[in-house]
């Protein structure tokens, strides 16, 4: 049983991991806590849903497309809003994405109603047996997809010139600027990439998860907790934090009761952050 639960937690953790990675990337590069991350996951899920309904693209296969859409959307949002707030006071930087989140969630509710929707036909269906463990295929596909995207992002950050420049910014922004790195352009790219992560996660989730305006909120909050657990600015930390949360959630949901599972995640956050005020692997400013 515990093996079954742990596997479920691990699968969930992978998706959380992808969402969290985007959040962590954005934070690391521009010091913005993206409270709207969950809302972007939600938008991506709707995008996936409409694509499958009207164009007939399967959510899983449509993942790259949705990720690309979200990347573009991210650049636009950065240029129009985020970039202008970066030099503003702390409160503005903290609250701007909060406003975005409220805006998008309620926009979805207004335009598309609060109804629950579900993608009707998806290519990944059914259950497979792996030794003693039952695994739902859609979840497996989504987790593998998440790991692939996470791997791609990781590769991009470590091996390409742009990626290395982005890393340089998150280590020391003023030094990077002195070295002639174009902060504005890279900030925009990093924000776009962060949203692409949210987008990919949303598309993968759309293949088996209910879609409704508030669906992203929990993913966003969980990612926030994961990133804080890992320590703001640490991409690997975010991934580890996310997997930890996936496991806490499934085990806690089973042993303590499903109604308490999110409360447990937050409890874990509070306990860990109090013990280590900068997260498990955190560094840098507040």
């Amino acid at each position, binding site marked *: 049983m515990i093996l079954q639960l742990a596997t479920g937690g691990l699968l969930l953790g992978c998706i959380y991991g992808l969402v969290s990675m985007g959040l962590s990337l954005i934070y690391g590069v521009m010091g913005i806590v993206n409270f709207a991350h969950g809302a972007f996951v939600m938008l991506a899920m709707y995008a996936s849903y409409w694509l499958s309904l009207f164009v007939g693209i399967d959510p899983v296969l449509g993942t790259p497309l949705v990720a690309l859409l979200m990347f573009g959307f991210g650049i636009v949002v950065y240029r129009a809003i985020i970039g202008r707030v970066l030099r503003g006071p702390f409160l503005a930087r*903290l609250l701007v994405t909060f406003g975005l*989140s*409220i805006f998008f969630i*309620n926009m979805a*509710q207004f335009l598309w109603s609060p109804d629950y929707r579900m993608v009707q036909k998806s290519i990944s269906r059914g259950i497979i047996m792996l030794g003693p463990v039952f695994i739902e295929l859609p979840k497996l596909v989504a987790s593998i997809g998440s790991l692939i995207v996470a791997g791609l992002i990781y590769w991009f950050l470590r091996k390409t010139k742009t990626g290395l420049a982005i890393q340089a910014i998150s280590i020391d922004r003023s030094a990077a600027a002195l070295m002639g790195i174009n902060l504005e352009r890279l900030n925009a790219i990093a924000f776009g990439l962060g949203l692409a992560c949210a987008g990919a996660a949303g598309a993968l989730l759309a293949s088996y998860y209910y879609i409704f305006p508030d669906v992203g909120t929990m993913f966003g909050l969980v990612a926030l*907790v994961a990133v804080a657990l890992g320590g703001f600015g640490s991409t690997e930390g975010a991934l580890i934090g996310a997997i930890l949360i996936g496991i806490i959630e499934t085990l806690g949901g089973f042993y303590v009761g499903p109604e*308490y599972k999110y409360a447990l995640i*937050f409890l874990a956050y509070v306990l860990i952050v*109090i013990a280590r*005020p900068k997260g498990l692997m955190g560094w840098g400013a507040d």
Partner: protein
Amino acid sequence: MQRDDIRNLAMLVAFAIIGLLFPIVATTRFSQHILVMVVLYAVLGEAWNIMAGYAGMVSIGQAAFFGLGAYVSSVLSVKYGVSPWLGMLCAGLATAAFATVIGLPFSRLRGRYFAIGTIALGQMIKVVFENWQWVGAATGLMIPLANQGFASFQFHASKLPYYYTGLALLLLTLAFMYIMERSKMGYYFKAIRENEDVASGLGVNRTAYKLIAIAVSAGITGMCGTFLAQYSLYVEPEYMFNHSISVTIALVAVFGGSGNIIGPVLGSAILMPISELTRAWLGSSGTGIDLMIYGAFIVLMCVYEPEGLVGMARRIGASIKAQRERRGAARCQNS
């Protein structure tokens, strides 16, 4: 110094008189409802202001204190027949005590870790109340109807008595903040907000002062919870611990301008009517349009007026002054 004090006192009195005059124009139940919401969120915004605007601990979980206050007085009145007024006092003290206990570990968290912690707190406490049978779990509690009047803190015929009660609460809060801002406490709060290390290097006991700020803020917020419970005559986790309460509180304060006394009052006076009216015009709540407008407001505010209405007013004032000086200088040169 003294002239200043007299001027400020005059302003407070003028403010109170204006507040007392509003009901003359607000004759419908709906407009009275708006007035009640304006004063309620003005008080809540000020409470947030103490903790976030002055002491720099940004909370996005005020609903935790708000709901707790609502439940304390409601449970006392439903289960033990305690007067809501005494209940309000208990609510304030209980939330302040709760906040102090929570604040002890929380005060170690800085900046965004604190903010996220407050979100977590708000969510956790809601789940607890949703599953706590003794206080009615997800269905909550109904406060039994009583004869209306100040003794029972229930008014059925008109909403104005609620408004006056809220106004009194607001004036008390403003008076407290006025004194606080000019005292050691206010300076220490601001010092902590600006730079904790410098503050403690200058002898500020940051943990103690943070706890004071959290406790006072939570206590006032808890009393507001009682106020809303008596206004609606029921408490329910989804209603009293709603995340949007936390958001609205922060928004009202930031929109008006945090870190100064008048900001949250201005913010509430402008935002609450907008939100109530959009809700009324564009269909009942649930369509999300009101919150959508809220969200847009926050974003626009952060981009264009991060210092809030007060900051905007200051800037305009400064530019007018500069212009006048320039004109004066030009005149001198001409003559």
